[in-house]
């Protein structure tokens, strides 16, 4: 595989999308000659800014579907690191190891460790979109329940909001509660012995147990949601976002922030909600705040 010959195409996936622009690369080869073509979605400028290196030729892919090239440094780090150890113990005469070799090996092992960490750091850089789709973990079933006796307008608003949140973000399970009325949609894991009619009460009870109604600030767990949420959340939840819907009321003791409800979103991906996603979720929650 030659690094000097490659091509990539920039494509954005059609509606609906769940992640920012997916970047796909292709490695085209026709016979013995290799073609270089770089398509850039850059109608504005005809090249780079002056003083900026055009490094786009270095982006490559092995063309294996499902294999994320941004994790390549990690695999190379593990591979070469183990080869170094192999070389140390098996490939060299242990009694006659020179300090020079030890120095090289120490350097090599620290480089391997650094390479393994690189994809993790790269994840947070703007512009690197790791192509991860929210997968549906097993053990959950699809659910769509609402409290009884809701006004029609609120019913439609809740239905639309949960639909849009599930469609447009990396959410697999959404729960919205406004003024005591609950709407639960998505993939949840509920105990089998509870009938559908009692599910609303079950959810309400779970929320009360954790003390969620008293939440004052938004909570975002990008990696692990903790044990307290185990019964409530679907199996395989990695990210969790909870937005309380607060309203300010004037009481005798001054302005109080009372909880009007909350928006709870669970995802099977880590770092599922970017800043932009959270801003949009906040905007959706604002419908119910007024």
């Amino acid at each position: 595989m030659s690094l000097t010959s490659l091509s990539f195409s920039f494509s954005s996936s059609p509606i609906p999308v769940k992640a920012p622009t997916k970047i796909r690369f292709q490695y085209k080869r026709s016979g013995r000659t290799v073609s270089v073509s770089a398509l850039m979605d850059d109608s504005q400028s005809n090249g780079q800014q002056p003083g900026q290196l055009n490094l786009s030729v270095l982006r490559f892919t092995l063309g294996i579907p499902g294999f994320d090239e941004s994790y390549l440094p990690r695999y190379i780090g593990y591979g070469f690191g183990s080869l170094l150890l192999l070389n140390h113990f098996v490939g060299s005469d242990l009694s006659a190891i020179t300090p020079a070799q030890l120095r090289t090996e120490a350097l090599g092992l620290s480089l391997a460790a650094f390479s393994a960490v690189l994809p993790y750091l790269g994840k947070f850089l703007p512009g690197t979109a790791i192509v991860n789709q929210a997968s549906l973990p097993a053990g959950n079933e699809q659910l769509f329940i609402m409290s009884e006796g809701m006004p029609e307008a609120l019913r439609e608003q809740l239905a639309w909001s949960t639909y849009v949140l599930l469609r447009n973000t990396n959410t697999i399970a959404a729960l919205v509660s406004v003024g005591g009325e609950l709407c639960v949609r998505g993939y949840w894991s509920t105990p089998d012995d509870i009938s559908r009619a009692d599910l609303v009460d079950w959810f309400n009870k779970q929320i009360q147990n954790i003390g969620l109604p008293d939440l004052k600030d938004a909570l975002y767990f990008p990696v692990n949601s903790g044990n307290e949420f185990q019964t409530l959340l679907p199996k395989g939840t990695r990210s969790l976002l909870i937005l309380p819907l607060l309203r300010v009321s004037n009481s005798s003791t001054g302005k109080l922030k009372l909880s009007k409800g909350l928006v709870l979103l669970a995802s099977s991906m880590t770092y599922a909600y970017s800043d932009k996603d959270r801003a949009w979720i906040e905007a959706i929650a604002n419908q119910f705040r007024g």
Partner: protein
Amino acid sequence: MSRTGDIRSGLHAPEGERGQYRGPKPRKDWAADWVPNNEGTVRSLPIYVGGASLLAVLFNRAVSGIAPVADASSSQSRADLLTLGLAVTNILTGLVWLSIRPKSISVVKPEGVECRRIQSGLPELVVSELLWVWESLSTVTCCRSLVIIYDSICIMQIGVAAKSSAEDGGAVAVNPVKLMQGTLYQGIKKSKAQNYLANLSLYPGRSELPFLPANTQAVILQPLGDNGIAVIGGDTIRGFTTSDQTWIAYIGEKLDVTLAKHAGEISVLTQESVQRSNS
């Protein structure tokens, strides 16, 4: 709130019993906070690390001299090669990170006057929904101007609008009929899909939107069903991300449902405005 409270309001803690949130708090994720703030350093870090290691390996080899014994040097050479390979991987990763740095595009402050015109006579529900749409768009995206036209009348013109040359210096009014006869509206009516003009200065259809500030950078035209259009003006070239576009499409659908439900009241307003323009 009374002590007995609402039977269904399982989520309201009765007064006098302010509970505490008993759940876990999220851990401080230092990487997620540190990396985006020091983007430049992080992007070039692998290059420096890789380059320094490369030099270190060569230096080490030069200083210690190539041993005359074949076995020793070969295992040394193997270790050297592996370390060199790792150094090169780091350098290449650093270069890839540098190459995918998104171009930072500056915000262009729209020139015009603030305006907030909402058609009078609309039901309360519709007005609050329209204002919610404006609040969401202006907070989350780069939208600075919003015009909503439905059933041939301009329901809302809000945000920054072009300043009219008339003496009062108010905002240029929207001519819904003219807009609906123009190519931009006809185009989206036929395709029934959103149209994103990422760099408005490149499009000749710009002249059909005189009510937007002259230096509006990007525009999204969202059809609202068959009868309406939302014109969303932004202050950055390509400022609306794909995610924004999808959200706007869904919000457009919702708005269309709301407006269609109150279509009766809106058509009354249409007749009034037609009579006014005829008289």
